[in-house]
């Protein structure tokens, strides 16, 4: 923690960056901090409550953050993949941001619960994590903590759903998606949803109905998941931001499985690796095409 604070203070006082985006203690767990004063760098923290991905603040949509000046951002290994995603898709120049990586031993699913990291509270994406040490970072701080606990519950849940009859699965998802209030928090929290104008906001013609209606909800969630196919960096922010608890992580994870099984793609923090949609191989699997 001291290493992180000293580094942030140094970057700010040297003028390398004008703002350090990190986490600080707040009244309800940790919250994002935008540190512009070297003295305030002592407030920065990193522990298992730092679930939030801070990379969305680098999106070109966030003009109010860009106004603060050249940023440094504190990232976990999974968050670093979002920086790579923005660089890969030319939303961000790598040299325009200083990336401070933190070595991570897993984070809790609900940072406001104030419970310690345990197999019951760990975030779905953490078990089996292969990105605990960020490679993309300019500076990597902290000791590598022990690996996160527990087996992944998510893959088991996907297998369980896939074993169901299609109609039962449809009913399950209609109930889940039926709760959607179309607040689009999943989109706002997502580091990879950076379009200036989202297709869901278009009205001429209206591709996705904007009212919380089963028809529009289905179209929106299919669209959101597909636009993330092969691009999702699996930070879990969409699911965490969802006010009605739709298991969006299952959809993202399912498409990540397809990307991995059919196209050999795994999320990476190497910006040079192309995402599977937008690239192709001549011998891609096509058993489903008659």
């Amino acid at each position, binding site marked *: 923690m001291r290493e992180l604070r000293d580094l942030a203070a140094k970057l700010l006082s040297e003028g390398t960056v004008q703002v350090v985006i990190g986490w600080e203690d707040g009244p309800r767990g940790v919250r994002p901090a935008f540190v512009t004063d070297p003295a305030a760098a002592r407030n920065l923290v990193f522990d298992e409550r730092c679930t939030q991905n801070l990379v969305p603040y680098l999106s070109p949509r966030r003009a109010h953050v860009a106004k603060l000046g050249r940023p440094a951002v504190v990232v976990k290994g999974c968050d670093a993949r979002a920086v790579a995603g923005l660089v890969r898709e030319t939303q961000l120049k790598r040299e325009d941001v200083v990336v401070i990586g933190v070595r991570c031993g897993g984070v809790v699913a609900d940072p406001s619960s104030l419970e310690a990291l345990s197999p019951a509270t760990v975030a779905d994406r953490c078990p089996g994590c292969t990105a605990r040490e960020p490679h993309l970072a300019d500076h990597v701080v902290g000791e590598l903590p022990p690996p996160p606990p527990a087996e992944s519950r998510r893959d088991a849940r996907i297998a369980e759903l896939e074993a169901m009859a299609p109609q039962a699965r449809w009913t399950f998802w*209609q109930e889940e998606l*039926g709760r959607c209030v179309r607040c689009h928090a999943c989109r706002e929290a997502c580091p990879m949803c950076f379009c200036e104008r989202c297709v869901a906001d278009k009205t001429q013609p209206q591709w996705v109905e904007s009212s919380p209606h089963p028809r529009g909800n289905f179209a929106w969630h299919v669209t959101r998941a597909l636009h993330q196919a092969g691009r999702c960096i699996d930070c879990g922010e969409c699911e965490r931001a969802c006010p009605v608890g739709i298991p969006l992580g299952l959809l993202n994870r399912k498409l990540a499985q397809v990307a991995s099984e059919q196209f050999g793609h795994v999320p990476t923090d190497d910006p040079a690796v192309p995402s599977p949609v937008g690239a*192709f191989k001549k011998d891609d699997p096509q058993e489903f095409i008659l």
Partner: protein
Amino acid sequence: MHATLDKESPFEPRLTAFVCNWCTYTGADLAGTSRLQMDANVRIVRLPCTGRIDPLFIIKAFERGADGVIVSGCHPADCHYTTGNYHARRRFAFFKELVEFLGLPEGRITFSWVSASEGQKWREIVNDATARVRALGPFASYPGTALPAFPATDPHPNSIATAKGAAR
């Protein structure tokens, strides 16, 4: 055409086909000029390339009352624009897995490659897809769905043209 639009039949599916201009549309045209008999349940939407087919088109077709969808274009290595169908193939691989995971049964959406000379294959694709969707039943009555039919009187409720027309 074939006597499939039978008034006595309890359910005749409506299928929307999104096809590319260069191969499948021409193939379907060949099927027509060859006087091949086939099910008359398919409405064709012609697009420049399979790469132009946004998965939202397919969702929209289902929203507006289609019971099934056919997506068809040039065989790999045959694309008029060189690589459009390769890109489409990856996109539809994701799309197919996603909608099936969401519970849409296999068979409502048919993907195929039909070249300009394959009028016969187009007939088989159309007849097979229609038979599959007929067996699955109407999409609107799919259990658990709350997808009501779109109001037929006002197909474009948000369009300016309709609003002006209503004002007049």
